[in-house]
């Protein structure tokens, strides 16, 4: 996406290796001295063909596949798919399963927002905050591992419900973890709103008005920091959010400071939700039966991922595989806002502005081509599998 012409200007290429954060993307900033006058983006460095791959796998296999769309918000992808498939099949997961989906979803939001806090503190040169927030994040990572067995790709969802239950011991552990994190988060809120040095990097940087947020199609915390009232958990409650109501967190700053405030305050909201869900966890079954073949139809499933609205379009032809699975991840929407807002800012602000939308590059895919000894070979799934078995033998 381009803004303004690029001819006869000095272009600073950033990426594709680790531009600002440890994921691949390529940006070209046209600069006039220190000031950015144009920006363009090239994605696709981690495009893995998941949408195409989904068409060759059955609905159950796709649950595991979509968890690999994003390593940070894997649970929410599986939730969106499971809810969509259940809707097409005409079944509803039991209340306890829906509550556990929301519970894991909020725990995932905790670790995602804390991860972002660390990353962007690092971009701002505030490595102490980075280390502390990531140390604290281990609390929720450990809890997720305790509950689901995994630190990432929790695999809690199945079609028709969830495969994990929450025991009273786990419930107590989660409460203790949340209490600890809540006290830490209060400290972080003080830092991001009061530390003069840090505010110099965030206040008034990348300011986006409410109308701009709407025009550029921003979603999630990025949009809410500009006062746009959108949160799928509130607008179109899914899983257990109609029972456990969410208070939408918005801010009017519209700049990086606003994005800090919104995400940190959302942590408090997630702590409250987690406690409420644990207090009122419905009793009952964890799964209902979902047929292997899903009736023909089309369904749209929208959920609130940590980065904003996640959109799934699912189409079934009546078989056991999807005919089309379209995924639109929130980061894709937020790129437009960064590229537009970059103009007029100093080049030195770019890393923080890029990281400010909490971008997640693993949105879409490419083929795996391995170059070794100047020769080139394309490995199929079977080749990779054989290689991995040999490797670990």
């Amino acid at each position, binding site marked *: *996406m*381009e803004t303004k012409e690029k001819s006869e200007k000095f272009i600073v290429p950033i990426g594709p290796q680790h531009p600002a954060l440890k994921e691949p993307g390529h940006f070209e900033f046209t600069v006039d001295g220190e000031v950015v006058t144009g920006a363009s983006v090239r994605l*696709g460095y981690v495009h893995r063909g998941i949408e195409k791959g989904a068409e060759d796998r059955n609905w159950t296999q796709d649950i595991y596949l979509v968890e690999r769309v994003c390593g940070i918000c894997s649970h929410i992808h599986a939730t969106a798919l499971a809810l969509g498939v259940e809707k097409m099949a005409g079944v509803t997961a039991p209340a306890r399963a829906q509550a556990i989906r929301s519970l894991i979803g909020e725990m995932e939001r905790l670790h995602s927002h804390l991860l972002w806090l660390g990353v962007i503190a690092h971009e701002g040169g505030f490595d102490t905050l980075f280390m502390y927030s990531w140390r604290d994040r281990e609390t929720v990572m450990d809890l997720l591992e305790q509950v689901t067995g995994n630190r990432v790709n929790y695999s809690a969802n199945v079609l028709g419900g969830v495969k994990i239950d929450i025991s009273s011991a786990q419930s107590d552990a989660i409460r203790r973890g949340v209490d600890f994190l809540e006290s830490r988060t209060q400290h972080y809120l003080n830092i991001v709103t009061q530390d003069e040095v840090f505010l110099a990097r965030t206040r008034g940087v990348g300011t986006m008005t409410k109308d701009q947020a709407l025009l550029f*199609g921003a979603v999630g915390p990025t949009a809410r920091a500009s006062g746009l009232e959108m949160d799928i958990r509130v607008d179109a409650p899914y899983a257990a959010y109609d029972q456990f109501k969410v208070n939408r967190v918005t801010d009017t700053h519209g700049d990086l400071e606003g994005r800090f405030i919104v995400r940190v305050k959302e942590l408090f909201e997630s702590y409250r939700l987690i406690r409420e869900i644990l207090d009122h966890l419905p009793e009952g079954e964890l799964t209902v039966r979902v047929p292997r073949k899903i009736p023909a139809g089309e369904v749209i499933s*929208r959920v609130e991922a940590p980065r904003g609205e996640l959109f799934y*379009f699912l189409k079934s032809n009546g078989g056991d595989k999807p*005919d089309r699975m*379209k995924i639109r991840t929130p980061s894709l929407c937020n790129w437009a806002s960064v590229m537009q807002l970059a103009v007029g800012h100093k080049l030195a602000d770019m890393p923080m502005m890029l990281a400010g939308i909490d971008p997640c590059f693993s949105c879409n895919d490419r083929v795996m081509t391995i170059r070794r000894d100047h020769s080139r070979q394309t490995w199929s799934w079977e080749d990779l599998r054989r290689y991995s078995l040999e490797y670990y033998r």
Partner: protein
Amino acid sequence: MQEPTRMQDMEAPLAELTDRFEWRDDNRLDVFITSDRLLPAVEVLFAHHWVYLTAITGFDSPAAEGSEAEGMIELLYHFCSGASILTLRLSLPYSNLVVPSVCHLIPPATLYERELIEMLGVEIPGTTSTDRLLLPDDWPVGVYPMRKTFKGL
């Protein structure tokens, strides 16, 4: 910024541009249009403050085997407001895969349009950029991975 018109009240202003509405759910309305009506339809939506283009879904529906009919690429422009999803829906025959760009009205649509160009081979005159967005630089020209006929390079 004004609140968008309720979706239930959107049938009347769009009636001239379409011959078919389909309610797929309480909160989902599909509006069937032709490609020359896309821009007028988007303008009508804008006039009623439906400005948030959530996504453009494109999918290939090839003709059934042995059928005389031509294969189609279907494009779905999803506009959202709260829980409501209004979809402008159009089918392009393989022989004329051209649709106008909506980028001048909706700047972020460029990413979705570039995806359609690369993945399905839709031609979109007027779009802001046709540079490769997702596929590798050395991907062969004229190979569209989201077509049903694509089974690997």
